[in-house]
C-alpha cells in the first residue's frame, strides 16, 4: 500500500534570540514512512524530541530542514514543510488531526458541543453530528452527567477522552497522538485501544508517542525509538 506520510531528513533547531541566539536541537534527520491503516509508535526519553516531531508534522513548529511528504486528497502529494498557511489550514480541517500531550485551551462550550462542533465545522448537519458525537462520547465512557457542562472542571483523564473524541470523531486521514493514554486508568484505556483499531481498519494512518509500552504493543505496526533527537527503528512489533 502506498505511503500516506513520508518524512525525510527532518530537523528542527530552535534559535532563542533572548539567549544570544542559543540553538536548541529538537530533532535531527528524522525519517520514516506511514501507510494507510498503519500505526507508527515512537518512544524515548523525556526531552528526546518526540513531541517536536509531531508538532513539525502538524506545522505547529516550522521545520528547519527536511521534507514531510503528505499524500493529500485535496492537493495530491504535498510537502508540508513549505506548504502555505492556507493549505495547512485546509489540511488540518479535512485530513490531519492532532491530540496534544497537554490539553489545548478549551473553548466555552459544553463537552457535547465541543464534539458536535468538530463535525459541523466540517460540513455535517447538526442532527448527524449530534448522533455521532453522542456515540463516540458513549464509546469513550465519558459519564453522561458531564456532557452538558463546560470541560474546564474535568479531570485530566476526562479532558483527554474529550480531546480524543473531538480528534477522532471525524476520521482524519492522518492522526497524530501525543501520549494518548497518559492520564487514563487501565479500564479507560480499552475504548481508546478499540477506537484506534477501528480507525486503522478504516484506513487512518497514525503516529503515536508513548511512554506506555504495554498499551503501544497492542496497536503498533512499527516502533521507533528516539534518542537525543534521532530516530531509530526498534524492530517490527
Amino acid at each position, binding site marked *: 500500500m502506498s505511503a500516506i506520510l513520508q518524512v525525510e531528513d527532518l530537523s528542527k533547531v530552535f534559535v532563542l534570540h533572548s539567549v544570544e541566539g542559543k540553538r536548541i536541537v529538537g530533532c535531527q534527520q528524522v525519517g520514516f514512512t506511514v501507510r494507510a491503516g498503519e500505526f507508527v509508535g515512537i518512544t524515548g526519553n523525556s526531552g528526546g524530541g518526540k513531541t517536536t516531531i509531531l508538532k513539525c508534522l502538524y506545522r505547529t*513548529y*516550522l521545520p528547519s530542514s527536511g521534507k514531510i511528504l503528505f499524500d493529500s486528497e485535496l492537493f495530491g502529494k504535498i510537502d508540508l514543510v513549505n506548504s502555505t498557511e492556507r493549505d495547512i*489550514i485546509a489540511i488540518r480541517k479535512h485530513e490531519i488531526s492532532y491530540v496534544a500531550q497537554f490539553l489545548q485551551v478549551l*473553548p*466555552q*462550550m459544553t463537552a457535547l458541543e465541543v464534539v458536535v462542533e468538530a463535525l*459541523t465545522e466540517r460540513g455535517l448537519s447538526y442532527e448527524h453530528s449530534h448522533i455521532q458525537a453522542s456515540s463516540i462520547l458513549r464509546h469513550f465512557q465519558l459519564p453522561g452527567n458531564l456532557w452538558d457542562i463546560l470541560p474546564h472542571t474535568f479531570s485530566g483523564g476526562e479532558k483527554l477522552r474529550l480531546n480524543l473524541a473531538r480528534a477522532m470523531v471525524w476520521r482524519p486521514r492522518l492522526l497524530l497522538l501525543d501520549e494518548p493514554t497518559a492520564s487514563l486508568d487501565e479500564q479507560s484505556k480499552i475504548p481508546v485501544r478499540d477506537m484506534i483499531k477501528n480507525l486503522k481498519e478504516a484506513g487512518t494512518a497514525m503516529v503515536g508517542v508513548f511512554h506506555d509500552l504495554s498499551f503501544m504493543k497492542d496497536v503498533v505496526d512499527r516502533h521507533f525509538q528516539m534518542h537525543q533527537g534521532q530516530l531509530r527503528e526498534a524492530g517490527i512489533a
Partner: protein
Amino acid sequence: MLSVSNLSKIYGSGCGLCLELTGPGVGSNICPKCHSIVACARIDLDVYPGEIVGIVGESGSGKSTLIKLLHFDQAPTSGYAYLQGFEDGQVDMFAVSNQKKRWLRNYQLGIVYQNPNAGLNMEFSCGGNIADKLIAADWYNYTRIRSRAAELLQKTELPVQRMDELPKRFSGGMQQRVQIAKALANNPPLLLLDEVTTGLDVSVQAQVLRLIRQIQSALQIAMVVVSHDFAVIRMLTERTLVMRNGRVVESGLTDQVMEDPHHPYTQLLINSML
C-alpha cells in the same frame, strides 16, 4: 476577500525618511527628523472568506490604527485595499469617492471599537443604535427595523425587553454585545473587532468570545480581531500577525506564532506572557 498592500499611516507632516528611520530595528515609531509618528508602515494583509485573522502587539504598535484605516475612520498616508464585495475586488477602496466609502462602510463592514463610547451613541436607546446602522444601509420600514433589532439582540444574547433602554446603563459586557449587534445589523461580510474583551471580567470575556465563535460559524463572516491577549487570539483565530512599531514583524499560523516564534520581538512577547 480583503487584500491590503503596502498600507501606511503617518501622523504628522512626514519628511520622506520617516519609514526608513523608524521601526522595530530602531525600536521606535517616531521619526527622529520630523517627529511624525509612523503608526502603520507597509502593512500587507489578506483575509479569506469566513476566516478570522488575529493581530497582536504591544500597546502603541499600530493595531487600532490599522482597524481605523480599514473602516475609513482615518485616511491612510499610502497603500491599497481591495474588497471582494466592492467592484469585484478590482478597485482600490481608498481611491474612491466619499460616497462610495460610505456605501462600503454601511454595506460591507461592521466594527466593534475598543471603547464602547466610540461605537455607540450613549444617548440613544440600544434599539436606536442598531436602527442607526440599518437606516444608513437604507432600511426605512419602522416595523422591520424593530424586528431586525430584536432579532439581533436575541442573537447577541441580550434581553429584548431592554431594547428601549440607554446603553450607558448597561454593563461593559452588555455594551460590547450592543456594539456587536449593531455591527452585524447589515450582515457585513467583514467584521473588525478591536479589543472586544478588554476591560471585561473573565467570565464575561468568555461569554463574548463564545458569541463571536458562534457568529463566525453560523454566519461565515470574516473577521479581523485585534487583541493584546494571546489567549483570545488563540481561541478565535487560525492565522495571526504580530505588530511592533507600526510594522508586521511576524505572521503565520496562530499556534506556530505562539509556540515557535521566529522573530526576536515575538519571542520576547511570548516569553513575557508565560
